[in-house]
Structures are given as structure tokens and as C-alpha cells.
């Protein structure tokens, strides 16, 4: 009988960058880490792992604290926030945190009551653009029915279109959200849905706007006219 030899695998070297990335992702996803597995596969001491767990856990509240401190400025329009350039600078913390910031802001949206703060969150999600796209879509896809509380998310999505072209896989997801919100009886949901056509190409946008026109009352018709004027002149 022939002997089969396993392909030679060099011993795993400790790669601190890889270690930290994987480690933090696992910790973020599960809140736990398999210490024995890590210790044996990476040949590092339990003390070292303990230390790194401590550091990662310490960083998490620090990030949340930074978000909480930066949060009120989202609706502030004085001092440095009086100009678009100043507001962009103020949003740096959110841009740097990327997807974590988007998720945190979406969570805040569920609790926030103040209209200016809600607008501020939507504006920041719009600025985050592709960094927030996945989190916003996932949130909107969580529920099978339209929810008026989610209108600021549709609003934020609508204006992301101006920053970058959409991937083709995202288009059906957007159209599914438009359909769901157009079918919902609330006029605010219908308005948010037609605003979302801003993300689509001209033909698809026209098609959805035509669909919306069929059941449009005067308020929705006014929105449709405004959108048509903006897009097609």
C-alpha cells in the first residue's frame, strides 16, 4: 500500500496584524474568543491573549464614548458647524469609524425624537455613503412591512446616489424597498419611496414614478412634480 504524505505545512508564524484583525472580528461577532485554539495555533502565551482581550474590550466603550460626545453636533449649525466645510470636519469621526459609525447611528435613530437630530443622522449616513449602504439596506430589509420610523433611512439612501454609482446587485434590493414603501398607505412612506428612485437609472426611475402617479393624491403629485423637475427638467 502506498504511503500518502500530507503536504508539508510550515509552522504558523505569529502575524500580529492578522491576529488582531481576526481577533477583533471574532470578539465583535460573538463577544467571546476560544483561548485554547488561539493559544495552540498561534503559539502565544495565555497571558498575551488575556492582555489583548483586555485591550480590545477597553477600545469598544471608548469608541462609543467618542460617538456620544460627537453626537449632539450632528444638528448643530453654529460655530465651526455653520459652513459645509466645518460640518464635514465635524463628521470626520463618523467617516473614520465607517461601518461601526453607521450601525451606531442607525441604532440611535430608533430612540431619537428630535426632528433636527433625526435630519442630522440622515445627513451623516448620506455622507458615509458606501460605508453605510450595507447597514442601511439591511435595516430596511429587516422588516417585511414598511415602517414610517424608517423614513429617515430612505431619505439618507436617496441622496447617496449623488456620490457614487450603485453596484448592480444592489438595484433589485432598492426596487424591493421602493415597492414595499409605495404600497404602504402612509403618504410619507410613498413620498420617501419615490425619492429613492434617485438611486435608479432614468428608465427604472420613470417606471416607478409612473406607478406612483396612478394612486397619487395632491401631496404625492406635488412631490412627483418636484422630483421630475429636479431630474428631467
Amino acid at each position: 500500500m502506498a504511503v500518502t504524505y500530507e503536504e508539508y505545512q510550515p509552522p504558523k508564524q505569529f502575524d500580529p496584524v492578522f491576529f488582531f484583525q481576526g481577533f477583533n472580528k471574532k470578539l465583535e461577532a460573538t463577544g467571546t474568543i476560544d483561548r485554547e485554539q488561539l493559544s495552540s495555533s498561534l503559539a502565544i502565551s495565555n497571558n498575551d491573549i488575556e492582555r489583548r482581550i483586555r485591550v480590545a474590550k477597553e477600545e469598544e466603550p471608548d469608541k462609543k464614548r467618542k460617538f456620544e460626545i460627537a453626537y449632539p453636533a450632528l444638528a448643530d449649525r453654529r460655530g465651526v458647524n455653520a459652513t459645509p466645510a466645518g460640518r464635514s470636519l465635524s463628521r470626520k469621526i463618523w467617516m473614520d469609524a465607517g461601518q461601526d459609525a453607521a450601525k451606531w447611528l442607525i441604532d440611535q435613530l430608533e430612540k431619537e425624537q428630535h426632528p433636527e437630530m433625526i435630519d442630522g443622522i440622515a445627513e451623516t449616513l448620506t455622507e458615509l455613503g458606501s460605508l453605510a449602504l450595507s447597514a442601511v439596506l439591511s435595516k430596511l430589509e429587516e422588516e417585511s412591512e414598511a415602517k414610517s420610523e424608517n423614513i429617515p433611512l430612505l431619505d439618507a439612501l436617496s441622496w447617496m446616489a449623488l456620490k457614487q454609482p450603485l453596484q448592480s446587485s444592489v438595484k433589485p434590493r432598492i426596487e424591493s424597498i421602493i415597492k414595499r414603501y409605495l404600497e404602504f398607505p402612509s403618504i410619507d412612506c410613498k413620498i420617501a419611496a419615490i425619492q429613492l428612485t434617485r438611486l435608479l437609472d432614468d428608465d427604472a426611475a420613470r417606471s416607478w414614478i409612473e406607478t406612483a402617479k396612478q394612486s397619487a393624491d395632491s401631496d404625492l403629485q406635488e412631490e412627483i412634480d418636484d422630483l421630475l423637475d429636479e431630474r428631467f427638467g
Partner: protein
Amino acid sequence: MRLKQFFCPQQHVFLRIAKVKLWESNEAGDPPTAESAVAGLSLRSGEKCLSLYRLGHESEVAQLACIFSLTLRDKPDHFQYVLFPEKILSGCRVNRSIVPEHPCFLSERHFEIVEPSEEQLLQLADRILNSQEKKVGKIMKQDIVAFAVQHNMSENEELKGRIGDKWRKLIENKKARRTD
């Protein structure tokens, strides 16, 4: 005429930026209540005063809407407001509050109700709702853009560095279509 003005000093109107739906009947036809409308007067966390704009005449609303939206809103949206006469504020501590970093048109018209209590805000919402002279309005986004184009606001020295990219793009599109 002068005498009339002397004895009947000009009544200013005050504008609060707030969603129209708070001040109008809902889709089911239920009239608004002070308890729900007060959301349009609520202070943000850490905010001490309620911002209002005092206008000499209702005709200033379009200009205020345009300058406010273009310079202080990054994401283009309709401008929604409630307008009410000065007398509604009787009994409130109202101060002129210049905001030097804002465009002059806004800064000069900016007033604040100083440290209003929740009860005062509820009373104010009730008085506005019951006022026959209140006006609730919405200026559509494209009307704001049209006003900006008509008054060449994107070239105005004071405003041009303050207009956000998204608004600027809408203004440029509108201008381009006019010249086509």
C-alpha cells in the same frame, strides 16, 4: 399714513422651522393637538433657547427659506415652517440673538425664547394652533433652487462659499436646463 403707523406699530411675524404635519390634521382627519405639535418647538439635548426668525413681512419667507436651506442644510429638502404673529409670544422672554457666523439675512432676523419650560412650550404650541392668523407652509426643494437661480445666489459673495455640494449641483442643473 404716518400717524397710523405711529399708533399701530408694525406687527412682525415669527417663523419657526418645523414639519407641516405637526400643525395640520393627520391623514385620518384628526386635528393636531398641542401635545403633538409641541414636538416642533422642542429643544435638542443641551439646547437652552428656542430659535425663531422674526420677519418684517410674510414676503421674506421665500428668501429666508432659500438662504437657510442652501447654507445650513447639507441634504436638499423642502423648507417647512409655521408662521405666527408677534402677539402670540406675549409673556415670553424673547431676545434678539445675532449669530455672526450665519449669513446676515438670517443672523439679523434670529431671535430666541430664553430657557422656556416644557409647560411654556406647550402653551405656545396651543396658542399657535388656536391662532386664526397662523400660516403653515412648505416651500418645495425645486422652488428653493429656482429662487436661488433667479437671484443668482450661488455667485453671491456672502453665500457662495457656504452652499453645500448637493444644493450647488441642483442649482447648476437648473441653470444648465435654462440655457438649453
